[in-house]
């Protein structure tokens, strides 16, 4: 069965766009209530529980409230940019989803429909490109509000996002060294087991690229502006930072953008490191569409549903980790944030790329073909690197309190706050 072409392709793509956008918006709604519920659980309280069963309809109530509230327009605001900023906040996070493969291909009577909105040849470069424009919403919202708090929030946001973008992009280089391809469906296939076609690694990249996953996740966290990286909206210092002056639906759009961004980053981690829609320990879902249109494996509709479920479960678990981190870690101080970004992450990622490149060179010199053993050697190297990273490097040297003697009564009290 060949991939769909012509009119059927156009129809299928339009259908995917509509369905996927609705699902994403629904997921954002659920993510907001999910976050509040998890927060309630972690703080030993109930969370929202008045509207609907288990408080599930709270999101609809909130949405209605935000639609009906008065839209304020600060006198100092620069009108066109003030109105444009929420749109720019929501747009990148939603269109990023276009390149994420979310299930195995679906066979129809017109041909095979790949479960990805746009399989662009630049793949993850598209992710970097669109991700890098996400900063405009924050920067412009902060500037156009005409308020000092907003401006400071916008400044912090743009500095932070530009800083961590470098680490984000670099942390994906080892992945490219392994796959040799930037297309997301190909990256997913590379993590599955195939007996025919080009060689694959037969394991999720979270094993051979464990440290890379850590770096990607941390920079992704910084890109989404969530705790412990939510300096742009640190409420103790800046009210709420760049969206201080926004009310009603415009504020809501910033929030929708933030949650969509969280879901998008979770989905990207899933695709790049957790096997995408691959179901573990089951070889029936190994379906691959090669560049020339040949299909390896047997796509069926129930496999599409199952793999969609697997993708959903993995992404939801990662969203849970995001929420978990938010309610666990305290916020960084701004100098700590910049130190972590420029003085640690950047160097560490660069060294990591070099190490992985040399290890790959070594493995190929020894003559191990791409596959399970190849990944296993890399996994061992990564375990050693992770050991060095977490136990040798972070002895309060990475994130610390004030300078020596700066804090009352606390000489050199270093606080190691996680990695």
């Amino acid at each position, binding site marked *: 069965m060949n991939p769909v072409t012509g009119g059927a392709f156009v129809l299928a793509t339009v259908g995917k766009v509509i369905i996927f956008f609705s699902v994403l918006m629904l997921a954002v709604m659920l993510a907001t209530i999910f976050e509040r519920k998890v927060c309630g659980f972690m703080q030993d309280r109930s969370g929202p529980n008045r509207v609907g069963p288990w408080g599930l309809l709270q999101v609809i109530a909130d949405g209605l409230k935000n639609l009906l509230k008065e839209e304020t327009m600060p006198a100092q605001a620069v009108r066109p940019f003030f109105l444009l900023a929420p749109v720019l906040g929501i747009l990148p996070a939603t269109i990023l989803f276009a390149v994420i493969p979310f299930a195995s291909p679906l066979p129809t009577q017109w041909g095979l429909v790949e479960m990805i909105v746009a399989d662009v040849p630049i793949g993850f470069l598209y992710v970097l490109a669109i991700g890098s424009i996400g900063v405009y919403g924050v920067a412009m919202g902060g*500037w156009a509000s005409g308020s000092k708090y907003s401006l400071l929030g916008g400044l912090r946001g743009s500095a932070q996002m530009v800083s961590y*973008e470098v680490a984000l992009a670099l942390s994906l280089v080892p992945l490219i060294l392994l796959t040799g391809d930037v297309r997301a469906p190909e990256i997913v296939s590379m993590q599955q087991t195939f007996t025919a076609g080009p060689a694959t690694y037969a394991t999720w990249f979270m094993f051979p690229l464990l440290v890379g996953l850590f770096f990607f996740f941390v920079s992704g966290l910084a890109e989404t502006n969530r705790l412990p990286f939510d300096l742009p909206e640190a409420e103790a210092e800046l009210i709420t930072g760049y969206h201080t002056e926004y009310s009603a639906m415009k504020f809501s759009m910033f929030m929708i953008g933030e949650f969509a961004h969280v879901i998008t980053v979770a989905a990207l981690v899933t695709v790049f490191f957790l096997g995408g829609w691959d179901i573990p320990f089951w070889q029936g879902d190994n379906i691959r569409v090669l560049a020339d249109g040949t299909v390896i494996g047997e796509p069926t509709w129930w496999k599409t549903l199952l793999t969609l479920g697997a993708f959903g479960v993995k992404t939801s678990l990662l969203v849970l980790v995001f929420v978990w981190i938010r309610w666990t870690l305290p916020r960084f101080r701004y100098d700590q944030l910049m130190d972590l970004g420029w003085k640690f992450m950047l160097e560490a990622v660069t060294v990591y790329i070099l190490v992985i490149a040399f290890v790959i060179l070594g493995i190929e010199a020894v003559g191990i073909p791409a596959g399970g053993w190849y990944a296993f050697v890399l996994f061992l190297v990564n375990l050693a690197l992770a050991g060095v990273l977490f136990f040798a490097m972070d002895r309060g040297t990475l994130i610390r309190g004030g300078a020596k003697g700066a804090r009352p009564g606390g000489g050199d009290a270093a606080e190691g706050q996680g990695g």
Partner: protein
Amino acid sequence: MIQDFLFQAFAASAILGAVIMVTRRNPVSAVIFLVGVFFATSGMFLMLDAHYIAAINVILYGGAIMVLFLFVLMLLNLGHADWRDLRGPVGGLIGGSISIAFLGVLTRLFVGGTDARPVVEIAGSALREAAAEQGVVGVVARPLFTEYTIVLEVTGVLLLVSIVGTILLARRERT
């Protein structure tokens, strides 16, 4: 063809955006329209099957350099100033004559110049073939890391020197 139409649309919006950009008095507006111009140019690259250049254009110019511009404008709070760059009739005269001269050169290219389309067609089909074989990134990466390695490295050193120089210039003297 829809691709031709899209190319023309992107080209038109690039020119329009550029014109709006240079006529804005507010620097932040100018930055935003310049970002728009970069996106339109990326769209043109996409229509020419140069996917890699399109992506890099957005990543570097749209996502990094222009954000830095915006950041500096915001940091120095220049955003609300509306000074004119060209003051007085003399400034207008100089600016106007340079623009007209440029327009003349461009018109000369379009009217009297050779038709570049066959060359673009050949290059385009060669590019498509290579991309199908090595992927769109491989087409750029392979020559960069084989044929032009020295050039690439030297350029890297050059950039490094400029970064070190900037830091040296901006460094405060220890008091």
